[in-house]
């Protein structure tokens, strides 16, 4: 159906106009982009670095770099994906600086063959939200994701917390689609396994 196809093709993301205006020096247009994405960029940075001060610095640096390099943004990807990519790179760089003893990259922590095989088959009953209060639940979620290797944490954050597609995640991380898929599976299963320690159906035993 050609009519429908051309309609879809003409649908332009609202960011395109804002980016075009910002490129011409319209600060208000850039400020609107900042408003739209500052929460997301801060969240991504905090998930990866697990450190609030670092996340604040990275959010500032990512927008600053985006502003400086705006001319280089060709619009082949979404502006938000491009921005996330800058923030991810800044975050990983920050982690590398912090950890002197080992390097941090998207290539590490992969291929431990048994890493993705589920071992805990207990149901989660009652639902975690019924089992724990909001602040206790938040603490469990923070502690659990903190324990994931940075490469897995990053993929999980982009795909499942920020809801990026597999293709967008691959683009933001400079990885292939199969690489994203394999890391995502491992990340999800590892998180599931770790959360199960708190959420598994109890048989009269105490919470961990």
């Amino acid at each position, binding site marked *: 159906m050609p009519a429908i196809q051309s309609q879809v093709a003409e649908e332009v993301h609202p960011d395109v106009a804002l980016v075009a205006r910002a490129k011409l020096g319209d600060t208000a247009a850039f400020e609107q982009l900042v408003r739209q994405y500052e929460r997301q960029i801060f969240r991504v940075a905090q998930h990866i670095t697990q450190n609030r001060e670092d996340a604040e610095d990275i959010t500032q640096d990512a927008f600053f770099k985006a502003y400086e390099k705006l001319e280089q943004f060709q619009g082949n990807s979404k502006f938000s994906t491009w921005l996330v990519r800058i923030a991810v790179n800044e975050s990983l760089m920050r982690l590398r600086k912090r950890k002197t003893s080992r390097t941090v990259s998207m290539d590490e922590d992969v291929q431990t063959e048994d890493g993705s095989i589920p071992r805990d088959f207990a149901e989660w009953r009652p639902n975690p939200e019924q089992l724990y209060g909001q602040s206790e639940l938040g603490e469990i979620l923070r502690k659990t994701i903190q324990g994931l290797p940075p490469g897995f944490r990053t993929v999980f954050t982009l795909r499942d917390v920020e809801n990026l597609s597999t293709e967008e995640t691959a683009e933001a991380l400079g990885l292939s689609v199969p690489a994203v898929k394999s890391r995502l*599976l491992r990340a999800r299963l590892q998180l599931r396994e770790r*959360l199960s320690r708190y959420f598994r159906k109890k048989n009269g035993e105490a919470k961990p």
Partner: protein
Amino acid sequence: MTCTEFLSKLDDYFDGKVDADVLAEVQAHVKKCSHCEVVLDTTRKTISIYRENEVYEFPAELRERLHAAIMKKCSKAKV
């Protein structure tokens, strides 16, 4: 479908991207494998609990401070 094959389809299954025949195979597998049924359910909950709960707070005060700092920094940039 084996348990390993089931795991490899999980991502596309959650995205609603599996073909009808694969979907039927996944559903049939889960029906007869209680382990994978639990893995499917708890993995789905893992995703939704992280998506629905703001793990890190972003209070208005922090947002305003950060926003002002970003705009101040950018105002000094050479574009």
